[in-house]
């Protein structure tokens, strides 16, 4: 049997499925990162405000992060079945450590003199948090979102094992069908998606943090 390495005809025949799986991949990723953020933001703020809570929060999310994704899915299936819920619980739990760490270190990086001046001018602590500390932490938080998103895009493929998986479906198909084209297709598209989304997020971050683009003036008053 003389099989070509890439069977373009197979890809051509499955274009509609490629579109479907790509959309599923993006959906699984977006839901995971958004839910991850919704959980991480309050936990990160608690860890920032009440320092003693940071070690336990980082500890628990750190343990979640170390659980192999295959094992976590296997563990969850008896409870939530072969469902999107199972996939999302796993995906969300891997975003938490990255997001919370970046939220806390972003907030920690806000210059002390800026906070002091704001307080001295009459900012309440809530105004200071929402108008100064969080905006100034945004570049670091955004970096966390980018890492979490790219990681999630890779992890989504693993959820193919429970019947989800987005582009991971093709990878699994390739493994089962014993010809490389679907696996290659799934992998290449997954990587391309990760790179593209990362670029979009970086662009978005620069758009909302225009002050990070300025260059310091050299002239003296």
């Amino acid at each position, binding site marked *: 049997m003389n099989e070509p390495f890439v069977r373009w005809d197979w890809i051509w025949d499955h274009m509609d499925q490629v579109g479907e799986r790509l959309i599923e991949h993006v959906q699984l990723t977006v839901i995971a990162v958004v839910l991850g953020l919704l959980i991480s933001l309050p936990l990160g703020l608690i860890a920032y405000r009440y320092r003693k809570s940071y070690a336990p929060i980082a500890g628990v999310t750190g343990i979640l992060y170390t659980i192999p994704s295959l094992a976590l899915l296997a563990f969850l299936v008896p409870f939530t079945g072969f469902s999107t819920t199972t996939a999302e619980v796993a995906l969300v739990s891997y975003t938490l450590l990255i997001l919370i760490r970046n939220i806390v270190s972003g907030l920690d990086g806000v210059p002390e003199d800026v906070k002091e001046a704001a*307080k001295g001018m009459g900012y309440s602590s809530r105004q200071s948090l929402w108008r100064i500390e969080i905006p100034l932490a945004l570049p670091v938080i955004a970096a966390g979102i980018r890492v979490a998103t790219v990681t999630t895009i890779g992890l989504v493929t693993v959820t193919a094992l429970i019947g989800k998986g987005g582009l991971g479906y093709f990878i699994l198909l390739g493994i089962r069908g014993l010809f490389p084209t679907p696996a290659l297709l799934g992998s290449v598209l997954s990587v391309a998606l990760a790179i593209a989304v990362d670029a979009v997020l970086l662009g978005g971050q620069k758009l909302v943090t225009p002050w990070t683009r300025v260059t310091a003036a050299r002239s*003296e008053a």
Partner: protein
Amino acid sequence: MISLRNVSKTFPGSSEPAVSDLSLDINAGETVVLVGPSGCGKTTTMKMINRLIEPTSGDIIVGGESVRTKDPVELRRGIGYVIQSIGLLPHRTIRQNMTTLPWILGWDDARMRGRVDELIATLDLDPALLDRYPAELSGGQRQRVGVARALAADPPVMLMDEPFGAVDPIVRERLQDEFLAIQKKLRKTIVFVTHDIDEALKMADRIAILNKGGILEQYAAPEAILRAPANDFVRRFVGMDRGLKALAIRNASGLDEVIAAVRGTP
């Protein structure tokens, strides 16, 4: 205008007080400079006025009211505040930085624009800077913006903690001169902290010389301190060249005093 009554502050975990039993009256429209070596409690004293630090005992009256009866956030909005590192908001343009407090106070756009125009005229700032971010400005420009921001809501009282400390001596001197000219017109009640006795002599209507532990050694006009230091600590702190300093200060009120000061020099 501002009255410190037997104010003491001991920080938790410290056996020595940072400020001990300090009483000080500051008149409306007067610039009082708190000066002393590091550890003399001058910044602590200043920060107790706007309740960034709470006194352990004693009371502080601002504009006839004890600061303890006021909400700290409300109190601070009525007091201009300038610190050495300035602390401009890096993510806001210069215009937005200047209108930080007016914006919180809910001024409308037209009023804020008008105020910014006044401030850049007062502080001799280039209007082209208004749309830039703080990182794009020089140190001297940032200091001016910091003062403009503190003046924005026209507070009767200003607290200034080494406001010109972070710039080189030439720029510092220019900023000092400009500020004296502005203060001559505005007549704010100013509490000014510095470790530099020359700056104190230049800027002050009255100087409060503090010693370690926040002990007030002398509280008098610059000429009086040069002419008649209260004790050895003040004499040493003012320095050996106080005769020359007396000649240099801006408001040497008469030749006799200057001559007296020079004769008094060892």
